[in-house]
């Protein structure tokens, strides 16, 4: 085995050094070229088109007002509940690793699933209505409203915030807790005085990220806005392109949204964004209270996060073999899979290429590595529909030969690349200095270093994040709402179209099958990772 590996290394070492080094950098340069092309052509188009502005001021201000209203309310709720939930989950003393994985899992679930989950939960035949109508005859809750949008938006962001705070709490050094206990300081008091700045350090980036996610809210508003008044900028872009055929308004709205979001995200980018801070889940029992109140609170929180899953029962109850074996379902399913696989492949090449350049610049003490970091992580903040509007123009007005499949794949891969990049950066940079010295000393080619040193090092993390972003891409319902035709639809779009054509039972059934498929996809890599962690015993 070692001989084979050595042979491979020899083979690659004979490969022209420069050629190999450029191959690693190519995906990043392609990305920079494409993004620059999109922005430059958009600006040229806006500069030469007349009139520059033909948007109704009243509806524009309404859109801006609603975007910020729902974003601020959802951010406030997510922060407050996220913090409270994390405290309860921490104090309840249940398995920390499982809780953290559960919160991560809730965050990456498809938006369409959570939205339909809540639509069913609050519908006239849903569990809430059935329960309250028993006591109050005329009870009804309108999910297609601002409240509905905020509930679903908060679901994701509570998971994001709670996970951040939970990891912080789980990482409190045990000796800190001992000092507090020794000095008779209750945990509630220590959170205000001694631990506040520890728990909230680094939170600013997460807060901005939450706000940016809420401002760039599209899918939830697209599915739950009950009236034209409930329109965010993202939805207005979609309406401008798809219904008003006014591409320019869409692009201008996209640029306005981009400026707003970049303004907020500039605060976050000045801080370190770190989603993969190493958390060592310890068995600290100080301050953990395994009492009935915390047990009840724990299960209430878990139940809240499990609410959308009730739709699975409804969906599977309406089991319909015909809709499962229909041609359109099969076509949508294959499209979804191909888009996700292609997006994942492109984003893996792009993120590994960016990481390699980032590390190379850092190892050589060039400050420009920060430019690489910003140029990639900024994509996390760019709203999908804003970019879609610009690519729409590039594609159709300038006559580019990109089809919908390629466009959706490219947009998806641009959005999942920063997630992979930020998730892997810590592990990728591990032992960077000593590896660099050894690579230099033994004249190891960068491509060899990437394949034989880096890949085994980041294997588990890579597998985990790949499965997460694959699922994110699979459940995406943003750019595909603009770039679709009769031959190109994905499963989320198909489900939303089934629902809007009043075929509720079929929509819930297809959704349930889709989610079960996603759940299976989620657990396969976990099984593999955990089996890798086990120490293999050799029998003699």
């Amino acid at each position, binding site marked *: 085995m070692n001989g084979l590996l050595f042979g491979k290394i020899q083979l690659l070492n004979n490969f022209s050094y420069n050629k190999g080094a450029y191959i690693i950098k190519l995906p990043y340069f392609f990305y920079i070229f494409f993004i620059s092309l999109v922005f430059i052509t958009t600006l040229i188009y806006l500069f030469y088109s007349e009139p520059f502005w033909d948007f109704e001021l009243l509806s524009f201000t309404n859109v801006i007002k609603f975007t910020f209203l729902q974003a601020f309310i959802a951010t406030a709720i997510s922060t407050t509940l996220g913090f409270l939930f994390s405290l309860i989950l921490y104090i309840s003393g249940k398995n920390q690793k499982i809780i953290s994985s559960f919160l991560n899992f809730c965050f990456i679930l498809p938006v369409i699933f959570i939205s339909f989950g809540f639509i069913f939960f609050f519908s006239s035949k849903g569990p809430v209505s059935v329960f309250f109508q028993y006591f109050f005859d005329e009870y009804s809750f309108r999910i297609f409203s601002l409240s509905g949008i905020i509930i679903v938006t908060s679901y994701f962001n509570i998971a994001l915030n709670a996970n951040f705070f939970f990891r912080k709490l789980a990482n409190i050094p045990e000796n800190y807790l001992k000092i507090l206990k020794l000095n*008779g300081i*209750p945990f509630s008091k220590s959170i205000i*005085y001694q631990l506040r700045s520890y728990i909230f350090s680094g939170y600013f980036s997460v807060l901005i990220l939450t706000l940016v996610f809420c401002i760039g809210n599209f899918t939830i508003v697209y599915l739950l806005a009950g009236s034209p008044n409930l329109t965010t900028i993202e939805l207005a872009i979609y309406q401008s392109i798809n219904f008003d055929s006014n591409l320019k308004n869409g692009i201008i709205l996209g640029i306005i949204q981009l400026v707003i979001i970049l303004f907020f995200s500039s605060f976050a980018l000045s801080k370190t964004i770190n989603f993969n801070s190493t958390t060592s889940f310890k068995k600290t029992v100080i301050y953990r209270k395994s009492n009935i109140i915390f047990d009840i609170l724990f299960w209430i929180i878990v139940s809240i996060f499990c609410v959308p899953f009730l739709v699975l029962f409804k969906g599977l109850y309406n089991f319909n073999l015909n809709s499962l074996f229909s041609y359109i379902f099969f076509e949508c399913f294959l499209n979804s899979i191909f888009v996700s696989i292609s997006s994942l492949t492109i984003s893996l090449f792009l993120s590994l290429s960016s990481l390699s350049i980032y590390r190379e610049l850092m190892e050589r003490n060039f400050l420009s590595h920060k430019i690489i970091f910003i140029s990639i992580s900024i994509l996390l903040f760019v709203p999908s529909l804003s970019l879609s509007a610009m690519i729409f123009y590039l594609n159709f007005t300038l006559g580019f030969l990109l089809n919908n499949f390629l466009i959706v794949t490219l947009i998806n891969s641009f959005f999942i690349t920063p997630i992979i990049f930020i998730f892997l950066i810590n592990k990728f940079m591990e032992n960077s200095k000593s590896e660099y010295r050894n690579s230099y000393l033994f004249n190891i080619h960068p491509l060899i270093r990437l394949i034989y040193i880096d890949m085994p090092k980041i294997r588990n993390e890579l597998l985990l994040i790949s499965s997460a972003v694959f699922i994110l891409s699979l459940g995406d319902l943003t750019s595909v709402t603009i770039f679709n035709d009769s031959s190109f639809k994905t499963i989320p779009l198909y489900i939303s179209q089934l629902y809007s054509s009043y075929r509720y039972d079929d929509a819930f059934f297809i959704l349930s099958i889709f989610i079960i498929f996603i759940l299976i996809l989620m657990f396969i890599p976990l099984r593999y990772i955990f089996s890798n962690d086990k120490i293999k015993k050799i029998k003699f």
Partner: protein
Amino acid sequence: MIKLKKLNFNFSSFSTEFDVETSKNEIFGVIGKSGSGKSTLFNLISGFLKPHSGKIFFDNTDITNLEPNERNLSILFQDHNNFDHLTIFQNIILGIDPDMKKTDDHVKQVKKVLKKISLNFDIDTKVSNLSGGEQQRVSIARCLLRNKKLLLLDEPFNSLDPGLRKNLYRDILTMTKKEKICTLISSHLIEELKNITNNFFFIHKGKIIENRVMTYQELSVNKYFKDYLQ
């Protein structure tokens, strides 16, 4: 004066039983291999672990069922003795005031105690800006301010330079003698412990050898101790 009466604690396959009594308040060295039970002993005495059976007495008072803050003791660990994100003042004053209020009286007390340990820094300096030795001095200052009669030092200076360790041990020695504090120091640097005390507990597989305090001379003929030195 500390007395451990058949103090038993079990976790997974490891069990400890400590049975020992000291005659007066002075410095005691606690030595033993890694995993022998030194930290368990400290956690039991300080109340972070509850014993399955047995009693702990300090100055003839049964403290077995008391909460850590109700026991008349202070403890120093190898790391994280201070909240890095807080200032020198806040880290010291939390020993007597959880709200860490900056009253004139508190400032005066903190400055006085800092003078005692020769730490000349602005009290509003963040602890993270201090060196390892200075940080440990801040935690010693908190112990001084708390003015407790039992001090547990769980390998507190092992990660510091030898010169720095010598100075800190000197500080501890002065403080212990002046305030008549009973001090238990756990360390694997026996040569350094020898310079400040000749009273040792040697722990082997969860038990104190011979269930008594031993001098270095007595220890040096013990077969387990010889193994330990090798």
